[in-house]
């Protein structure tokens, strides 16, 4: 008896120590407390721009403001002129292609297709002035639009189709005297409306992010940390970190969760191990387009229908366009579950002039590279935007149509509604051949989701992925995942063995009972 007690006590102790060792963890306090301290400190601006005499004189053009800015900020213009916000492109190395200056000038998307020939209207989201169809100087510092990013009065706005110039109603003096670090509104005015409307492109960046609730985004929540964009998108010399892979290709200068949260953010070791292969966003952005719908499909092939010779629009109950004569038909989605892909931080792109290899399947315009076996790859959540857009079946080139013009007769699709004319003029503008034939091809774009981070309690849990049915990762099949995956052979063979054991035991037991009863009866009879 003593022995039993002693060995029980020893094993109990061993068990307790094991459990203790296994569940103990080192909490990274320093990072978190540093962050808290930083957030609690009020930012103060070292200068009061309203006191500068240079900013008192009446500005009559936005260029005058810029010229005044750079008299003091005398190195800033050079920084800006080398930034991708100004150039609309980045120097990127793409496997198999070499060094490419990748940007809006040579990439094609499956929303409004491209900016080429449409600069006047697209320039509403360029940090410059004077962007007309041809001859914009990317080296003239006078054309830098300082105010669009640094206005802290929330009153600056660019005019429609003015080549990037501010709306005439804007009070340039007042704004120039109240400049500062960019707020959410400075970034959001372009980045929330990309593609010609709220939340058309990203899905996770839209107008609800101007003043988000905690449900929409834990970091930017006005009731919480109230982050501005540049809190995470840290900036050195006007080079803003973070970029989206719709228009970038290399794994560099990214804004990451780890820069604050480290790569071991969880108390649980097994969760930390998940970060080897799973991006933070995968679990912590369980849904996107939480407040307003995002565009998920765009069919250009239906564009051009007119009513009484006039373009028209059809809206859904939320006020989103489902049909526009100038653009075609759209599908929208709200509170969407992301799609999931492997991603190693590099991407390939369809560039203007590339020949489509296989027209029978959807053409991916920005292929995100990655796989389970690739050591840099992690699973990330994406929004997939699907479209049907024009291509030339003879040359197998995607078509850059001329879309916008001031008036009819210049071939612009949005005025003349003639695909062939728009394609002819548009392709001529970019010096590419056009056979005269137009067909529509299905295309896909992958938009990594990084915003609308949910609170801890709303993040994914184990069984969102680790489950037989409806796993979030049902589409990623290049690896074995516990609970989702099994070998049908082993499971069915195993189950058969177990059931046969039960059956055998049951049959044997029954026979024993029956035979023993018979024996007893026999013995009774003998008596």
């Amino acid at each position, binding site marked *: *008896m003593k022995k039993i007690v002693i060995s029980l006590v020893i094993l109990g102790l061993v068990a307790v120590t094991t459990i203790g060792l296994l569940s103990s963890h080192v909490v990274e306090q320093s990072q978190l407390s540093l962050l808290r301290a930083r957030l609690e400190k009020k930012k103060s601006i070292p200068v009061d721009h309203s006191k500068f005499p240079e900013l008192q004189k009446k500005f009559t053009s936005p260029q005058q403001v810029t010229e005044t800015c750079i008299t003091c900020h005398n190195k800033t213009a050079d920084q800006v002129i080398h930034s991708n916000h100004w150039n609309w492109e980045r120097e990127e190395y793409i496997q198999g292609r070499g060094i490419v200056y990748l940007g809006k000038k040579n990439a094609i998307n499956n929303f409004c297709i491209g900016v080429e020939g449409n600069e006047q209207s697209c320039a509403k989201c360029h940090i410059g002035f004077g962007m007309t169809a041809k001859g914009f100087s990317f080296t003239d510092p006078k054309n830098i639009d300082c105010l669009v990013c640094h206005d802290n009065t929330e009153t600056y706005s660019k005019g429609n189709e003015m080549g990037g110039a501010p709306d005439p109603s804007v009070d340039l003096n007042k704004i120039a005297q109240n400049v500062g670090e960019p707020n959410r509104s400075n970034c959001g005015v372009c980045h929330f409306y990309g593609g010609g409307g709220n939340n058309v492109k990203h899905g996770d960046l839209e107008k609800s992010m101007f003043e988000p609730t905690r449900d929409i985004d834990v970091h930017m929540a006005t009731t919480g940390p109230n982050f501005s964009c540049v809190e995470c998108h840290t900036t050195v010399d006007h080079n803003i970190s973070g970029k989206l892979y719709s228009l970038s290709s290399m794994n560099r200068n990214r804004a990451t969760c780890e820069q604050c949260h480290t790569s071991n953010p969880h108390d649980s070791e097994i969760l930390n191990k998940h970060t080897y292969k799973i991006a933070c966003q995968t679990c912590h952005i369980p849904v996107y387009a939480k407040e307003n719908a995002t565009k998920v499909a765009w069919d250009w092939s239906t564009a051009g229908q007119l009513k009484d010779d006039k373009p028209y629009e059809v809206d859904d109950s939320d006020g989103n366009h489902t049909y526009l004569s100038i653009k075609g038909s759209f599908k929208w989605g709200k509170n969407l579950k992301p799609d999931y892909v492997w991603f190693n931080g590099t991407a390939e792109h369809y560039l203007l002039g590339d020949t489509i290899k296989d027209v029978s399947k959807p053409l991916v315009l920005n292929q995100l590279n990655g796989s389970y076996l690739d050591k840099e790859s992690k699973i990330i959540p994406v929004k997939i935007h699907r479209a049907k857009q024009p291509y030339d079946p003879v040359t197998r080139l995607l078509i850059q149509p001329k879309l916008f013009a001031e008036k009819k007769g210049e071939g612009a699709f949005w005025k003349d509604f003639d695909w062939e004319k728009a394609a002819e003029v548009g392709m001529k503008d970019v010096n590419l051949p056009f056979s005269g034939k137009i067909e529509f091809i299905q295309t896909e774009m992958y938009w990594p989701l990084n915003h609308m981070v949910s609170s801890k309690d709303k993040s994914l849990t*184990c*069984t969102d992925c*680790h489950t037989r049915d409806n796993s979030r990762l049902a589409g990623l099949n290049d690896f074995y995942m*516990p609970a989702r995956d099994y070998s049908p052979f*082993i499971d069915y063979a195993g189950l058969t*063995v177990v059931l*046969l054991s039960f059956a055998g035991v049951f049959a044997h037991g029954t026979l024993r009972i029956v*035979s023993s009863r018979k024996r007893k009866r026999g013995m009774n009879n003998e008596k």
Partner: protein
Amino acid sequence: MKNKVYIYRSFERFWHWMQAILIFFLAATGFEIHGVINFFGYANAVKYHSVAAYIFIILIVFAIFWHFATGEWKQYVPTLEHLRSQIDFYLVGIFRNAPHPTKKSVLSKLNPLQKLVYLALKILVIPTMVISGLLYMFYRYPQKGGIEGLNIDSINVIALFHTAGAFLLLAFIIVHLYLVTTGTTITSNLKAMITGYEEIETEEGSNEEKSNKTNLKEEVVNE
């Protein structure tokens, strides 16, 4: 005549019951991790499964030491002798109230069929489970984390072995639990494993003569 013999020593009984509890617990948590039951919650199942696995490994280390220190490992040396008659007993004799073909004793507590099955468990199934389980826990995701020497690209094969072993253990337990009832009386085996004592027939019988040749030691002890 029948003697009360101390047949299972305290550590042996403790090891047996601890192992029983752990296997049941590992099966429950394991099949939850496998995605076929839902009881503890997935995260808990994973955590508990690991903790139970470590306890099991410690138990195994103690048990191995015990087996060699006491020489009890010899109990598991397989023999073909009487294997046939043991099988015949389970298939035929048991229904006719025939006596057990082999006698239980301190030096030979396992019948030939038990020797074979337990040995297979000890050298095939349990090692498979321990090794695949440790690989499952410590394998390195492709080129990241974990132990550098264990740079395994996929846990597919590991998981399949671990699952197959689990099914085998489950089948073993079902049959084992049933065969507990096939002792001298329905509960005699169970009582023996709880108290350590079992009433063992030491009378000279027809079967004893056969086993005399092979189990001389047993005879000595019985006398």
